[in-house]
């Protein structure tokens, strides 16, 4: 969707990502998703009187890894208290970073060649989770509110981009690329549906060439689809307002996925005064050069670099293959694809089986070594397994383990002897003379009829290409 001619949108994103640490940011409670409510809690993350925070070193390392990947400057930093009342925030303040974030500046290069600047990537703690019963489902007007503090104190990094994004598509690309980086650094699992990555979008519009307009902040976008829809809706709303002679009011807006629209949450005048001040319970955080170097040395290659390596190996991949390639990069299956290519597997096959079959059972990856992946694909490529059989073998190994050859044998996937296939084809020609004669006179699509019949008679053991070869030989 695009804006009317002469209009431009200006977008900056604030991405909150939960860090994949074993324990919470300031206490020893487990950082896991999906536990029974209020089971991963202690005096610290419940804010009981006299409790004190102790900073999780792993959270700091992951924040530094994100900053390093985003070309930020890692600096001595401090923690502040952001004061406001909300039932799911046990201390009624959030420990966050303010004027001295751990990561300052930086940039992210996107696959489309554009560059988005990064203002900061700072550490903060997550809040608990409220469920409001009755009313609108929001806190005001609710009959009751339930609070689960399991998420309270989970470490977050907030990555703030510059106002460099000019379309919803670019915003999507930025978020997707950032998600890839968060996964590659080991900082996050990138699971937006579990809330481990949440996005706020600052959107304004202007006539091309004019100064920046008044912005609105859309809170809590939980999927790339919502991000795109919300930005497009909001930019169009603002253009309509201005073209109708009105002005945009600076405010925080709520995105309603079902209505497909944004609505006012609070206007600037109602905004909380957070009364930031230095958190006196924590000392200054000063990562020395040696620590920064260890984090840098421990970083795996980022998606952009891996994309370059893989596309170079694939020659000139078709657009469809590029999408599958993004899945491979996202899931970190590069080594499988590269090993298959090294062994001479065709590029589309090497990518497709990883992006589809492996991707559908990631937990089974422990059962599937790179060698087994390559061996299965080679069997398929040599015609020893049909495509269907090859997928079945991969699924079986992912689920239960095993060697490709023995798994294929145990499933009865033995290649038909070439003579046997010829006999089946000859028999079918005899049984269907009309179809055979139409095929001979040039109706190529009837080959599918014969392939289907052969598969039926051979329990899927035949190879489609070989059936066509047999038909051609008899034409």
């Amino acid at each position, binding site marked *: 969707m695009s804006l009317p001619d002469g209009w431009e949108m200006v977008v900056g994103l604030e991405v909150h990502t939960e860090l994949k640490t074993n324990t919470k940011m300031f206490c020893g409670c487990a950082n896991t998703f999906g536990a029974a409510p209020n089971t991963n809690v202690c*005096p610290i993350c*419940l*804010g*009981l*009187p*006299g*409790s*004190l*925070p*102790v*900073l999780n070193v792993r959270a700091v390392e992951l924040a530094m890894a994100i900053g390093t990947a985003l070309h930020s400057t890692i600096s001595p930093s401090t923690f502040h*208290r952001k*004061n406001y*009342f909300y*039932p799911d925030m*046990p*201390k*009624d*303040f959030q420990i966050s970073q303010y004027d001295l974030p751990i990561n300052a500046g930086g940039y992210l290069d996107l696959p489309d060649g554009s560059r988005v600047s990064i203002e900061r990537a700072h550490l903060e703690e997550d809040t608990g989770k409220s469920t409001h019963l009755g009313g609108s489902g929001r*806190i*005001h*007007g609710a009959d009751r*509110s339930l*609070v689960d503090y399991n998420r309270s104190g989970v470490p977050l990094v907030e990555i703030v981009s510059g106002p460099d994004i000019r379309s919803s598509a670019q915003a999507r690309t930025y978020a997707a690329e950032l998600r890839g980086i968060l996964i590659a650094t080991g900082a996050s699992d990138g699971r937006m549906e579990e809330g481990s990555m949440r996005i706020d979008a600052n959107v304004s519009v202007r006539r091309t060439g004019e100064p920046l307009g008044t912005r609105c902040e859309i809170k809590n976008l939980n999927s790339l689809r919502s991000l795109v829809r919300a930005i497009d809706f909001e930019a169009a709303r603002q253009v309509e307002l201005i073209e109708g002679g009105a002005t945009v009011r600076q405010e925080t807006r709520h995105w309603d996925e079902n209505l497909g629209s944004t609505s006012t949450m609070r206007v600037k005048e109602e905004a909380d*005064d957070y*009364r*930031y*001040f230095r958190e*006196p*319970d*924590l*000392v200054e955080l000063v990562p020395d050069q040696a620590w920064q170097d260890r984090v840098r040395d421990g970083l795996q290659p980022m998606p952009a670099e891996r994309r370059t390596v893989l596309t170079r190996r694939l020659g000139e991949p078709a657009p469809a293959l590029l999408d599958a390639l993004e899945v491979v990069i996202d899931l970190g299956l590069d080594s499988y694809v590269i090993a298959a290519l090294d062994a001479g597997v065709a590029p589309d096959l090497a990518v497709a089986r990883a992006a589809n079959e492996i991707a559908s059972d990631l937990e089974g990856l422990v059962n599937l070594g790179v060698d087994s992946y390559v061996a299965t694909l080679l069997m398929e490529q040599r015609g020893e397994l049909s495509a269907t059989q090859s997928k079945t073998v991969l699924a079986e190994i992912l689920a239960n383990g095993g060697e490709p050859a023995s798994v294929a044998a145990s499933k009865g996937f033995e290649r038909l002897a070439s003579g046997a296939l010829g006999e089946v084809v000859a028999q079918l020609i005899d049984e269907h003379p009309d179809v055979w004669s139409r095929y001979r006179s040039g109706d190529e699509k009837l080959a599918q009829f014969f392939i289907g019949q052969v598969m039926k008679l051979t329990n899927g053991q035949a190879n489609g290409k070989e059936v066509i070869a047999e038909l051609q030989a008899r034409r």
Partner: protein
Amino acid sequence: MTELTDLSIAEAREGLKRKDFSATELARAHLAAIEVANSALNAYVLPTPERALAMAKASDARIMTGEAGPLEGIPLGIKDLFATKGVRTTACSHILHGFTPPYESTVTANLWAAGAVMLGKLNNDEFAMGSSNETSFYGPVVNPWRRKGSSAQLVPGGSSGGSSAAVAARLCMGATATDTGGSIRQPAAVTGTVGIKPTYGRCSRWGIVAFASSLDQAGPIARTVRDTALLLGAMASHDPKDTTSVDAPVPDYAAAVDKGVKGLTVGIPAEYRVAGMAPEIEALWQQGVAWLKAAGAKIKEVNLPHTKYALPAYYIVAPAEASSNLARYDGVRYGLREKGHDVTSMYENTRREGFGQEVKRRILIGTYVLSAGYYDAYYGQALKVRTLTIDAFRRAYREADLLLGATTPSVAFEFGSKTADPMAMYLSDVFTIPSNLSGEPAISVPFGTGEAGLPIGVQLLGPGRSEAQLFAGARVLEIADGRP
């Protein structure tokens, strides 16, 4: 034989070791004293006799098997600001109604590990906000001292008024206390007891209900300098649960008590002679100077510029932190909850009902000074004064090892005499506040009495982690005052 409750901790340790008496007998003597006197003094808000006897019994067993800790069997009172596992802890505020922590403060855990026995929880000003123990939800504490020829009740100082009164009245051998702006030293001074505010971070803050986190520091109150040193030695530790705690071994404070002051330079800060200071306190201060000189110390006039700004700076920094620290008392999770028609009115009703006047005043001041548009003029300026205070002490300690001054500008006063005028009340802390801003240690030791026969305390101040020297200096003054 002397009454068991009159013994010092040092004497009681010897008596227990010689098996002159048992820890159980010692605990019973104090429980009996509490039984008799607490209704008049209101020093304890929650005596814990059963726990005391159980702990004393365990102490006796350890003494029998030769496993006695350094404070084995010593009965102590615990300020209600310290979280005690399974024992109600409210900071003497209604808002923590019925709160029983599932955890123990590090300081009390250290004391129990050393063998000490808990007699109960001691009264204090609500959330340690006050200088007279008049703001406690559980009512004021009465100072066991009276003016000569008068029966008028006097305040025991604050906020550790329960601690100072209980120690002075022999309702415990020593007590834990906390000092955010003088809350250990001022009550010690007006009850004739010894109290030390250690270096910031020397005692862990884990499990101590926070008032102003960058200023709060725990310390002991006892009847002698040696007892105070023994207690601090057990309370102090490096604690990984408090990242602001001092990461250094705890010196043997008790061994330092008799080291004297020979060869030390004691500075006399000119700025501590403030208008309105009682002449009798001024006179005793000068006598202290003479005694230290006689004991071999060099005396030197020093300057602590900006001292007059410390008090206003403190009354910005402390309320600012308090306004944030006390936000969590919102009725959602624990303590008091007053119903409301929505979450905001529940917050409002709970906090209106749960907090007392002084606490509300400080929350309002603190919220104001941190607000957008006022931050720079108040909180920002106060932080600059704090830096100047630290700097002034640093310069003074280039010229002197220790500083000597009065602890308080006046002796114990009558109830209600300052409650109507918060500024007059706040002035009680004028000499104690600078060392909270700087994070440096200071000890108050009884030094004579004024005309009305009320105790007066003098204060020795020192640079960071100079507690051992402070104990030695305080001991010289104690001996000079007639307690060899």
